[in-house]
């Protein structure tokens, strides 16, 4: 019973922040600067999500995440499809773990 309570509580506090913009965004007319702020969110959010989190995937081996990140960076500079970029970073991490760690 206690677990169920925790799970439902987690669900509520996770959904409410996701839902709020759906409920309220229509009521406001956004000024030009706010629109630019909104437009910048993806770049800002991805920056914050990537670093330094990528170094902490394996806390004892920050170089693993770094290697995966560098490969992803190079492959995306080569304009490869996103699936191949992911595959490249996954592969390098598997190889590094297999041979070196």
């Amino acid at each position, binding site marked *: 019973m*206690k677990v*169920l309570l*925790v*799970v*439902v*509580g*987690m*669900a509520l*506090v*996770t*959904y409410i*922040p*996701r*839902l*709020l*913009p*759906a409920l309220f*965004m*229509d009521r406001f007319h956004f000024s*030009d*600067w706010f629109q*630019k*702020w*909104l*437009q*910048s*969110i*993806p*770049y*800002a*959010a*991805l*920056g*914050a*999500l*990537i*670093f*330094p*989190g*990528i170094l902490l*995937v394996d806390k004892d081996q920050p170089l*693993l*995440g770094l290697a*995966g*990140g560098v*490969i*992803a*960076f190079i*492959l*995306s*500079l080569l304009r490869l499809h*996103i699936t191949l*970029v*992911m595959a490249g*970073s*996954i592969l390098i*991490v*598997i190889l590094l*773990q*297999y041979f070196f760690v």
Partner: protein
Amino acid sequence: MESKPPKIVFKSNSQLAQGIQAGLPIFLGYFPIAIAFGALAVQAHLNWIEAVLMSLIVFAGASQFVGVSMFLAGAGAAQIIATTFFLNLRHLIMSLAVNDQMRHFSGGWKGFLSFFITDETFALLTLGGGEDQLESRTPSYMAGLMITAYLGWVTGTAVGGLGAGFIPPEITTAMTVGLYGLFIGLLVPPARKSLSYAVIAISSMIMNWALGFFMDTGWSIVLSTILAAVLGIILIKEDV
């Protein structure tokens, strides 16, 4: 050729199909990580139904791992729920950006689709598939993408909770790095096209790193996203 009527029918079908296709990389990334989550949850003495229910109604990977670990460590309900809240607060900011794309959707669609906002679905919806398509996103495209990701997470949890699929920690590590690869792969193309986007992203990285010394990850991601996006107000040219 372009004006043949059947093409219109095909297009309305293909929105869903395109969404599912766009969501597949997330499905593949989530599935093995969710297997690991399901296995951990069962080790933490949740039963299978509770583990799957958590993935079904919470659908937020990192906070689920943290929640289950806290449960294992004997933390109280209020403490776990509060931690979950702060860890997932960043989705509020992400939801602003996603809902900006959904302005022309009905209220029901907005409320429904907002449930499925994760770091990865947000990243693909905002930066995947070219900026020119953002205005024309349909509910079925978004639902296809988001529910594909969701199914990867839920089915993975179900498999992992049964103990059916053992995922070595090396694979979980590799797949997690793969999801970072997804973020990088989505960020690099616009960042090379516009220096402003690159500056915003790099500033956010530096801020998040620096703020990390003073606060929890949940807070520092929220704060650096809000602050770095303010730079965009100055940097982005009028043509929005």
